């Protein structure tokens, strides 16, 4: 092997390799070429094996040529590789194209029932004023549902609550959450601020605004100085929180045997905003709750001295609140469980 031959072989390898690199069809071929040409057992190495037969003074020259050939091949492969990679990526992206206008894979959406959610809303608002939730039984006795609430047997006010009685003398399905007032006063010491939510029952034919099962939220606040003015202030806050800060409210006399003075509380009609419409009976107002100062007889049955303690109670229908809020006009929807109705409460 002489220098000239080795130099020729190297030059041949270079030109052949450059031609091969330029002709490589894809990046896999480029990688294979790299191994074939430049690998440990590659052709360049093979050519250089002849270097051992050269005189020592020629070796550096061959080494220099070999390096130049290697660099040239490397550059050619790199260039070809880069060119191919760009094209291949482009092809892949082209291949992977989707019709992005098709709908996605939908998730199932659940919903919470508006009666219960309205109760939760009410509880959340009053929690800011220190009211805590307490629950009491649905099967009650006449004593706590009526008599201890200052509604003796045969009292004409009993007409306000048509009652469902159960097959145990003296027991009934509570007609309101108010018996919870007695239970709370008997078991908790003032200062008392509680909310009593729950299911109630009445002997009432079902129509767009009545049902025989419904929910109620009772509020009770008793301590040594709570006034009717405080009730008014708190209910104003509630109405603003529930229906919007600008809502006008109206505080007017009502009647309940277990409060004295008694209150009816209205908000400006949510449909017409005041001038009067069919939804508000053309009055411009919608009644949202009844309230009043706890009657001294009720305080006494709760074990509290009415000379020392005073406070207020209020009661509202979460369905009514929900109806006003969401523009629902038929109470029956709340227990109809038509999923097309319920699924709208997201």
């Amino acid at each position: 092997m002489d220098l000239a031959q080795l130099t020729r072989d190297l030059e041949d390898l270079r030109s052949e390799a450059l031609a091969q690199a330029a002709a490589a069809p894809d990046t896999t071929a480029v990688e294979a070429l790299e191994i074939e040409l430049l690998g440990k057992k590659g052709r360049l190495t093979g050519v250089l094996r002849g270097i051992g037969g050269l005189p020592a003074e020629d070796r550096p020259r061959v080494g220099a040529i070999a390096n130049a050939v290697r660099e040239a091949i490397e550059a050619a492969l790199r260039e070809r590789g880069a060119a191919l990679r760009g094209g291949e990526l482009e092809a892949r992206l082209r291949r992977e194209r989707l019709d992005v206008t098709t709908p996605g894979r939908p998730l199932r959406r659940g919903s919470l029932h508006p009666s219960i959610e309205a109760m939760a809303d009410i509880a959340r608002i009053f929690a800011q004023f220190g009211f805590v939730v307490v629950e009491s039984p649905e099967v009650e006795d006449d004593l706590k549902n009526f008599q201890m609430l200052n509604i003796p047997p045969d009292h004409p006010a009993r007409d306000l609550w048509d009652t469902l009685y159960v097959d145990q003398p003296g027991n009934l399905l509570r007609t309101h959450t108010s018996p919870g007032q007695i239970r709370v006063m008997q078991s908790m010491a003032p200062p008392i601020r509680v909310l009593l939510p729950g299911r109630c029952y009445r002997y009432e034919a079902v129509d767009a605004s009545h049902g025989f099962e419904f929910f109620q939220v009772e509020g009770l606040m008793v301590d040594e100085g709570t006034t009717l003015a405080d009730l008014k202030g708190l209910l104003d806050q509630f109405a603003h929180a529930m229906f919007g800060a600008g809502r006008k409210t109206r505080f007017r006399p009502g009647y309940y045997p277990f409060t004295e003075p008694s209150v009816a509380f209205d908000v400006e009609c949510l449909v017409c905003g005041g001038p009067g419409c069919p939804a508000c009976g053309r009055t411009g107002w919608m009644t949202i709750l009844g309230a009043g100062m706890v009657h001294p007889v009720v305080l006494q049955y709760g074990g509290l001295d009415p000379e020392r303690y005073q406070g207020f109670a209020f009661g509202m229908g979460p369905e009514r609140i929900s109806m006003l809020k969401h523009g629902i006009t038929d109470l029956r929807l709340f227990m109809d469980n038509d999923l097309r109705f319920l699924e709208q409460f997201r």
Partner: protein
Amino acid sequence: MRVPLSWLREYVDVELEPEALAERLTLLGMEVKSIERRGTEWRNVVVGELLSVDRHPRADRLSLTRVTTGGGEPLEIVCGATNIAAGDRVPVALPGAVLPGDRRIERTEKMGVTSNGMLCSGDELRLTADADGILILPADTPLGVALADLYGDVVLDVDVKPNRGDALSIVGLAREIAAVTGASIRFPDSTVTEAGQPTAERLRVEVADPALCPRFVGRWVEGVTVGPSPAAVQMRLIAAGMRPISNVVDASNYVMVELGKPIHTFDAAAVHDGRIDVRLARPGERLETLDHVDRELHPETLLIADPAGPLGLAGVMGGADSEVSAGTRDVIVESAIFDPISIRRTAFRYALRSEASLRFEKGQEHRLARIGADRTARLVAEWAGGTVAPGAVDTNPVEPERGRVAFRPARVNRLLGTALDSTDQAALLERVGIEIDGSADARGGSATEVQVRVAAGDRPLSVEVDASEVLVALVPTWRRDLEIEADIAEEVARIHGYELVPSTLPSTPMPSFRSSPLELRDGLRSALAGAGLTEIVTHALVAPASLEQVRWREPIDVADGETEAGGVPITVTNPLSADHSVLRQSLVASLLETVSSNARRGRSEAAVFEVGKGYGRVGEETREWWRLGLALWGPFDPPAWNRPSRDADLDDAKGVIGYLTGVLGLPAPAYTPVPTEPNLHPGRAAEVVARSTNGAIGLAGRVGEIHPELAEAFEIRGRVVVAELSVRGLSAGQLPVPRVAAPSRQPDAERDVAVVVYEDRPSGELEAAIRASAGPLLRDVRLFDVYRGAPLAAEERSLAFRLRFAAQDRTLTESEVEASMAAVMTSLAAAGGRIRS
């Protein structure tokens, strides 16, 4: 109560527009529910005068009239009524008129004669009850005027509260209006012109028990002619919602509406010996009431009777035999006060609640007995002729003094949050006729202490207060609702105006913290909604059949601290319908009913849950227990082009339950087969339980596909999976706060094991065997594959589990993991499994 404004205006001047008046009344606690304008439905109805009334040329039963309405050519109108004569003034509906009931009047041809409109009866105008004759108007009624301008009226529907029986009358409401507007009030004239034999010589009244009838005033009117009331009276009664009957009966109803005093009138000829007894019914007595129902009388029934027997149910309904009728000559007027409770019970007992009994139930002003009798006698004589006999029979002519209610103005302010001084309060009260007796005498003479009534009724309470702090209210006799200090406070607020009560926020001490019983319940509800389920609320009252149909054979286990289901069902004794007559004991029937009703509406899937109660009675004790129920039916995932549709199955329900135990911080639930529950598919039902590390049950219940027969009974196509669960804290609880550890820096070791068992061998048992034997390094076991087929035998399947081992503090050695796996395999083999290599 329906209040015609024209009637109200007789007793008080009202200058406000109806809307403004309605608002004032509402703010005064007399809520006006609606405002009705009567007469707006009469369009083109005017006053006309009959110029001539002749026989119709071609019809004997019709008349041909010529009518003038004041101007223009007279109109020819055909009429079928017989009560008309030339010169009468009558309502004329001109062509184009519209009458109540949307009845349109046009020019028509009647037997060859053109009729240019219609003469109207009182009934056609809904003005009076007379449908047979044309309404004859007073002779001085101006011609051509629209009828609406003459007889149109505004009727307020006022919701008078049960404690204000005194306001259940025109006069009572007039008083309220006078109080707020400052107008003065005029009372109805109850003076009578008397002649003939005195009442006392004709009528004797015996009251057996004055507690049941504290006062009975009777009067006698002789020689009446019973017939229709004057048209104006009928108009009033109809506007007020009463049906005109006859001049005598109308007089009593008129007085009831006007004064709030129910009155009864008897045909005197039917009252034997002129003697009336007020007494309780005797055993076996019967009475045919005015509604022509023959009733057996209960011995607690208070009666008006004569020596021959019952004449009427006191305060509730008269008897048919003594009814005032066309032939009645002499009339006895009964104006009595009865015990409210006795009347209420009688009215309920015979299902005869009437305008009269409603007023008696609320209590009556004692004075009204006398005033009502006089006023009725006067009106009977005025409308039916006859002579009022001198004097009255009165069983208790002593009229009570005004009630005295002592109150502390300072306490009133403390209750209301107002700053009204004594003078202000006194002035407000005086506007509703409450006088203030400030004399030392009123405050208890020379004593320095005065009793102030804080509570009355069945828990009376009075306190002794220094006289200087006290005012004494002299309550008008008609106000039966003012008894205690708080009543006076309300009256002060009411007259002052609730709108003027300040609006403040409480400044009293805050109660201490108390966690909400709803916290866990709400957490689970939100989690389930987040997982795609819809919350439902169904009736707790169900049909007995439904209760029986979907009853668990074995009660489900109860979670720690929750109430156990059980006891006999609680039944409603007066249900609205049999469909809702018993309290449910399980949620499942309600869930299935919801699926079914939605299927009927065209739905093809449902995923719903309810948090609700079951109810039962054990001995005397009532139990209410909280449960969580869910039902899955049809494809759980919404339909999509890019996903195959798959119906929800048992594993989806178990997935939801597993998700819940995760939310609850409980270990994975364990399932055991329940092949014996009749409502569930015997091969697709399981008992589920998840225990916390201390062994307490955190969640327990039953999950399964419902039995195909039950699905059919509910008319549901396809499979429905249901679960009913008892959850610790569902009745009152908080979601647990998880204790967490930093992730281990050491890698976990995972090993798989496949075990071959027969098909009937539950996977859960093998998993339990793994957990029991793997030792403390085991972190997790997961079934990841189930294989059937070659080379396994036909009844075999291979269950592949992946076990994860880790130690918090070090890398596990190969030998440690292998030792655990060896133990696992030994226990699987012992459990009857063959390890597949």
